[in-house]
């Protein structure tokens, strides 16, 4: 078992899902306890991943087993400093979301637990897969349980939302599948054998035009998932209709897969295209920041407000990612975790009042601070985290992203378009305060105007237990982010340097060819030492 943690990590939810299927329908409590228990065991197993040494870049816990030899498909998994935290985020939030769900989910307990376990399997698999085929399988696997969760346990228009979610995501991922096949076929032409292995495929250099097309296909799939403006319209519908647990997972983990896809697949495989189109995507991110904030401000449904705030937050992450420097990318990854925590918690909190009042309309509340003081405190803390108050997790991420964007591509930090983008993105900080405090004002302050709100019970034990870990993380990341950053920085550094090397090689590519990264590094070293001797020679001449 020493090296097979990741297989165990995938096996636990898979086997538990099977067991849940076999349990009799009437054993509701047992099913609930079993599913939560399995997810907690999963979380404990996953914490073992943190203990590994991440001071050097590269994958840990790698397992490589050939699956379909003739097509070069293999079961290859591993984690590095980037996927590590996303895995932990998934294993942490899955039990929390499931546990919180028991407040509202009263029917088809068995199927719900099964869907959740399957969903966890899909998400974890997508985060640890290092084989494109495997990744695609997990990527699509996630869709089904989420579709069911929205479509079966959702709100009034659940079927519309579920179908929209499914089709939207499907359109993107089909194009991505085509692109994957093209890449594999091009590789086969040069190397003589098929492979879906990410590391082997990233030795392939394609000319500009196919790169742009392929990157666009990947980017579409990921941008829809993120969701990036203007591909975000499925998100408010899905969130509003999904049950609390579904919303939590959707916001906290599923959206992250879009960004993760960019980092792990789209950018390394197509460096030239992502370098050129990166600023465009970052620009759309900035549009998303402002547009999402504006749209959030005028929502009257609290859940919709939070959904649009996600669009805004994910815009920040896109901006940081395509800034392509260490704090930008690290900040983006950290902000993924932060967004998972704060938005996940916000959806949990929305669920709390929805369970009590069966309404999420801001107009139906007011003055709750008097009735539910603990709930108010929790909501305020998460609000502050969401608007990035220093001391909470949101600040560190946003700060690094904005600094990353500010210093992007230039030595002093004033690349004109990036400077403008930074200015615009920073106004997002203002608008975040506007829409979140607007919601707080409408829900908590003022007098209790609706008599049915006068005797709402404060948070119960289940709700406190599910929120408390997130509150702890808000301050942990806010005050000591080094614990997280130290593990991700080496991976990010090598991601950026590899990307840069590939970009320069890719720029000179006219015909497809295969070149190993190590060879490129050697070549680059030669150039660098040449440059050094040239400069010293100049000095001597003077």
């Amino acid at each position, binding site marked *: 078992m020493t090296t097979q943690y990741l297989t165990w990590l995938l096996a636990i939810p898979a086997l538990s899902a099977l067991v849940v299927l076999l349990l009799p329908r009437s054993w509701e409590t047992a099913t609930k306890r079993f599913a939560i228990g399995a997810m907690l065991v999963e979380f404990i197993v996953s914490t073992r991943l943190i203990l590994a040494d991440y001071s050097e870049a590269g994958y840990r816990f790698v397992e490589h087993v050939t699956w379909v030899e003739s097509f070069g498909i293999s079961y290859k998994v591993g984690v590095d400093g980037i996927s590590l935290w996303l895995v932990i985020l998934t294993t942490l939030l899955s039990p929390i979301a499931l546990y919180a769900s028991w407040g509202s989910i009263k029917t088809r307990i068995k199927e719900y637990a099964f869907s959740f376990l399957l969903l966890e399997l899909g998400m974890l698999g997508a985060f640890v897969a290092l084989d494109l085929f495997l990744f695609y399988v997990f990527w699509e696997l996630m869709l089904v349980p989420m579709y069911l969760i929205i479509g079966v346990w959702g709100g009034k228009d659940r079927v519309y939302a579920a179908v929209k979610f499914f089709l939207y995501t499907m359109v993107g991922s089909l194009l991505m599948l085509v692109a994957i096949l093209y890449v594999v076929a091009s590789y086969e032409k040069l190397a003589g054998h098929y492979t879906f292995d990410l590391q082997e495929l990233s030795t392939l250099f394609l000319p500009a035009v196919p790169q742009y097309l392929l990157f666009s296909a990947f980017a579409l799939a990921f941008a829809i998932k993120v969701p990036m403006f203007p591909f975000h319209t*499925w998100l408010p519908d899905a969130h509003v209709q999904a049950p609390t647990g579904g919303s939590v997972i959707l916001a906290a983990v599923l959206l992250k897969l879009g960004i993760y896809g960019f980092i792990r697949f789209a950018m390394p495989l197509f460096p030239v295209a992502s370098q050129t189109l990166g600023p465009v995507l970052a620009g759309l991110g900035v549009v998303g920041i402002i547009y999402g904030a504006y749209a959030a401000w005028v929502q009257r449904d609290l859940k919709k407000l939070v959904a649009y705030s996600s669009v805004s937050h994910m815009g920040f992450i896109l901006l940081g990612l395509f800034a392509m420097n260490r704090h930008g990318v690290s900040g983006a990854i950290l902000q993924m975790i932060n967004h998972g925590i704060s938005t996940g918690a916000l959806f949990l909190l929305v669920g709390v009042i929805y369970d009590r009042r069966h309404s999420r309309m801001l107009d139906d509340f007011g003055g709750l601070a008097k009735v539910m003081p603990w709930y108010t405190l929790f909501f305020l803390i998460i609000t502050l985290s969401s608007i990035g*108050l220093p001391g909470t997790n949101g600040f560190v991420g946003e700060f690094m992203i904005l600094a990353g964007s500010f210093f992007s591509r230039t*030595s002093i930090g004033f690349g004109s378009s990036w400077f403008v983008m930074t200015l615009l993105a920073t106004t997002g900080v203002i608008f975040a305060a506007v829409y979140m405090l607007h919601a707080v004002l409408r829900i908590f302050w*003022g007098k209790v105007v609706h008599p049915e709100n006068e005797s709402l019970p404060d948070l119960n034990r289940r709700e406190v237990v599910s929120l408390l870990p997130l509150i702890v993380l808000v301050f942990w990341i806010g005050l000591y982010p*080094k614990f997280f950053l130290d593990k991700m920085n080496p991976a990010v550094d090598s991601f950026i340097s590899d990307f840069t090397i590939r970009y320069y090689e890719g720029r000179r590519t006219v015909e497809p060819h295969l070149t190993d990264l190590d060879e490129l590094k050697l070549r680059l070293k030669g150039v660098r030492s040449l440059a050094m001797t040239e400069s010293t020679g100049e000095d001597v001449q003077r």
Partner: protein
Amino acid sequence: MHLEAPQQILLLLIILFPLGGAIINGLLGRYMAKGLVTLVGVGSVAVSFALAVASFVELYGLHHGVEEAALAYHFYEWFSLKLPGGTVVPVNVQFVMDSLSGVMTLVVTGVGGLIHLYSIGYMGEDEGYPRFMSFLNLFMASMLILVLGSSVPVMFVGWEGVGLCSYLLIGFWYENRDYAGAGRKAFVVNRIGDFGVLIGMFILVGVAGSFEFADINSAAVSGQFRPDFPLWIFGVAPSLATVACVFLFLGCTGKSAQIPLFVWLPDAMAGPTPVSALIHAATMVTAGVYLCCRLSPLFITSDVAMSIIAVTGTLTALLAASIAVVQREMKKILAYSTVSQLGFMFAAVGVGFFAAGFFHVFTHAFFKACLFLGAGSVMHAVHAHGDADIFKLGGLKKQLPITRWTFLASCLAIAGFPLTSGFFSKDEILLGAAAQIYRRDDLLMNSVGWFTLIGLTLAAVMTAFYMFRLYFLTFTGEYRSADQSGDHPYDAHPHESPPSMTIPLVVLGIGALGVGFLGLPHVVPVIGTHLSDYSWWGNWMEGSVAGHAVPEEMHIVNLASGLALAAMAIGISAAWVLYRNKSTDALTDRMPARLYQLAFDKWRVDELYAATIVNPIKKVATVAGRADMTFVDALMTKWPSFKVRETGRILARMQNGVVQMYGAVMVVGVVAVLAWFWTPHSHIEVGFEGTKVELTTPQGLGYEYRWDANSDGEFETQWAETPTTTFEYAQDDIRGVAVFISHVRSGVERRIQVTEEWTPVPIESVAPIATLAATERGFEVRIDGQDFVFRRPDPPTLLAGKEELRLPMSKGGRLGPARVFARPLVEATVEVRNTFGNTRRTTKEIVLPFPIAEAPSHASLMPPTREVVR
């Protein structure tokens, strides 16, 4: 120089005590006895004050031995940035107490402690008392982080932290939604300022390569901020320092309530009075001035930024004072007075008298806190909630003697009565403005000096006037609520407040009178001290704050003091005449009604912002919110799905069950299939193997093929069923030349076929710097205006290799260097015959990736070597 060892853990404890108090009272206060809440809330601040004094004493001891003495405590590394070029810039959680932050720490913990004490009496009966204490403690912790933080981000933690506490405390009585709304307004307006701080911070770290104040200041001193900002703004290039300072100052206008962001502070009076005294008068709102002083070596390098600050400060001082003159409520008058006094401080900063500006922060903390607490004491006495209308008060000197005397002392101080604290500090600010007039004779700085001097003098007149208007109407004459007539009269029998409230009043009142002597020597020339000597204050601040030297010329000093005294005298005597023992508003009754209304409505700045900024944004947001579910969703989801459905419907229409229709479709289908099979179809695919070319055409049922690989009209192969042939081209087979222009930047190849005619290819705004000679490279090329022109030599001369030519482009060119090279062009033809005997000929042009070799050594596929064309 920072004293690193031993680690001054006291600095950390100064912050941790109030923070701990906030956490304990916040989480458990509800379940604790009131006495315990008081003990935790007030005790933690008292301990913090004691620790601050201890640290300050240690610092004071060092100060005489070491230049720029400071105590430091490095807690841990928060996170780090990696700048371009690989420098890793850590953000350290580190606290430093130097002469500037030392004084500020004493003020915050000292005045803060007194206000905590006052709150026991003032807020003790409120059901939210534990919450209040918790927020107040949290504010203390944040403010101390702001003051003691050694780097910009750590300061920013406090900066936003105090903003949060301000939000929570303004909206403390949250059941009143207007109050909560005022809190939100404060937070959002402050966030606009924080936007400026963030951007300013990035510029600072980009230039100085460090977040530490000390490093930024030394970078400023060494001139690193002098270069132009790389982006032009409106055709002029300001210096880096100017841009950084303007962004930072935007933050200061938010936190310290200056034009254009001052609108939140008057509304902030919705909070309980101790909050107004502590946060919105004595400490938090002066954070902007503190930041400017902290970075004074940077600010002083930019004349433009300094002028902006001086003018903004002066304008704010005037605007706020003009509003305060006509207001009717105690706290509102004091609020505008605070805005106005903050304007004085910024004006001082803007003319380069940072120490003077900060001295005013110091003295203002005493008298303004005392005034607010005095107002609170009055409101407590008459049971006024929220605010007190001075026209319903009057004659309170009898019932509230302690409050009255301390209030009077503070009024004298703020008006600048000789030898009170405000006299010294205000005098020095005017001196700074006057000094600038004499020091600088360039148009900008000189006129800014005049503007500041005159504007501040006017503001000082108004200050003295409105403060004594407030004093006389409140404390002299008859108590106007005694007979319980009029709208909502106050309690008929006011009483003096309990000792927990009067003790802070007395301490602060004594401070308001006395602390000015710290700045004594050079502002009172009559005593005869040598003018070039700094005062105690000047000496103390010299180590950590930059600034212009105090002028030695007596006439400047006399001018400034003369103006200050005259302003004070005019203001007080006007108020004496108009309001002493009076009960009517003698001044405003005589003002034109419209002017009065406008001033009373605060010049309608809020309405202006609402009309020009807030509402348009709100409208845009509403449109965005609506359009998202209609327009964007329609475009991205509904329209595509509609199209798909439409297509589906057309297809479904065909499945209508009418057999004739099916028959017709079938006939059409069969005919189409037959037609397709009637003639053969082919296209040619090319593969390369060494110098051989493999030609393939897709196989069809019953097809036969014959090849004319070089399209010379003679078929090389006979009819055969294999669809493939291999051929090796020779010189004679060449049909033409394909020229590739490859822009290295864009990596896009452009292929043209070169004939015997000159063929132009536009260069797209790129001008080569070298003239190109016709070469024997399979083509001739020259430059004709904006075009390359190519020609194939006639007869084709040489095609012996993949030749390449580098065209160095001009530096300003958009495309950079380009490569031009030629490759041989041949044609292959295949004829296909099917079972019906029909034939079809397909010809394909092939660009050979390799040369037709007589000398195969040229055929290397290695990347091309560099070739410089001069």
